[in-house]
């Protein structure tokens, strides 16, 4: 039923596409880690009292939101690579610099994710009811404890829907790193399309694979949202009773 060129093994490109999809996931996970860290830091800066920190964080969001993702990837890979090379030269390292494509791609996508995530985190932090923070202070928690025990965990519940959306955007944006010839799903697809001269089959196969990633993410996101809201009465209650033993 599956056309021969899509089968696994030497004759088909099926295995190449699946490996490409795994690389796509890998890049997405790296970018997520980088983006979450950047987003949290930028959200902290936006909520800080220092006008300098606020200005830097706002400029970061504004710039990233106004530039095409494709251009950011090229900028990070070429201009970023050149900058690192110049920096290395300054320290006496003359061998040139080979920017690892996965690192460059994940950095670029993480930079994009972080800019949007900072807005999500900022909103989520502000959504934590003030009374809870006051109550925590009243029972004698230090600022650190208030953050770790009250503000951060509560903020997460508000942030998860927004972060879920950004994850979907990120998954699709991974396809753009194909422009720096990173061997993820889109790149493998276009290589196969060119080699076989059957572009329609391969791009359709890629569409299906991306759609599968989206559908699985959708299901996972719904579960995560339910899990995060499990302590809140009347909101997103689990459909089935929670089974303890697996």
């Amino acid at each position, binding site marked *: 039923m599956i056309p021969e060129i899509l089968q696994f093994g030497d004759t088909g490109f099926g295995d190449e596409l699946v490996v490409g999809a795994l690389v796509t996931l890998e890049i997405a996970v790296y970018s997520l880690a980088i983006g979450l860290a950047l987003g949290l830091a930028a959200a902290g800066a936006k909520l800080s009292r220092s006008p300098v920190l606020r200005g830097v964080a706002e400029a970061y969001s504004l710039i990233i939101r106004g530039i095409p993702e494709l*251009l950011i990837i090229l900028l990070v890979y*070429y201009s970023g690579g050149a900058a690192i090379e110049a920096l290395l030269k300054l320290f006496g390292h003359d061998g040139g610099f080979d920017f690892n494509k996965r690192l460059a791609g994940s950095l670029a996508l993480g930079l994009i994710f972080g800019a949007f995530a900072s807005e999500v985190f900022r909103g989520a932090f502000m959504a934590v009811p003030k009374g809870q923070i006051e109550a925590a202070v009243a029972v004698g928690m230090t600022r650190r404890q208030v953050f770790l025990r009250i503000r951060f965990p509560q903020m997460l519940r508000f942030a998860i829907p927004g972060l879920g959306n950004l994850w979907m955007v990120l998954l699709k944006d991974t396809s753009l790193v194909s422009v720096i010839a990173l061997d993820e799903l889109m790149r493998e697809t276009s290589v196969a*399309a060119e080699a076989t001269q059957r*572009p329609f089959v391969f*791009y359709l196969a890629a569409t299906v694979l*991306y759609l599968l990633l989206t559908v699985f993410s959708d299901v996972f996101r719904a579960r995560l949202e339910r899990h995060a809201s499990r302590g809140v009465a009347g909101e997103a209650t689990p459909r089935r009773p929670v089974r303890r033993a697996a």
Partner: protein
Amino acid sequence: MLDLWIRYGDRLIDGAVITVKLVALACIIGLILAIPLALARRSHRRWIAVPAYLYIYLFRGTPLIVQLALLYYGLAQFEAVREGPFWIVLSDAETCGLLGLTLNTTAYVAEILRGGIAGVPKGEIEAAEACGMSRLTVYRRIVLPRALRIAWPAYGNEVILLLKGSALVSTITVYDLMGETRSVFSRGYDDTVYLYAAAMYLVLALAITGTFRLGERRMNRYLRAEG
């Protein structure tokens, strides 16, 4: 750095004109197509609602770059397409890019409009019905104008995303701002051209944001305090 602009500035501006053209057309045609799609998505008849839902899910759930490749490279594989009436649109990279951007943005805008329509207060619709307006008139005079107002900020965001998405038409050989930029870069590997392009995209994005702010003020002027 400046001599790069003297040499290639014209080409970047030519590219930016194509980008603006593509975004403006996709934005207008997409909005027109999105209205019936959003209404279809809300329909109680399943044979209308389900295809609309699938269309929206398909276009929102896959990367634009894949959609463009499927349209431009994929469909050209078939003899029937190459002989068919749509070949005029599909064979030219620019019109094909416009088609891809439009189909994509229609799905997103439909979803935004659906949210806007759902946000129209029930009382306004009931009041319109009580005045004796027909269903069509209620939609034309009350629901759609009100929904557009509610959805306006989200729609503005979508147009920014469309501007950024339009850079992907460079992957199907359109010489838009991104396409010109990449072609200039491939000549001399001078990466400052990326900085110029970034600045130009930022200006375009800010212009869109400004336009939508103005539109919002004009649209909601009846809400402002007198005086």
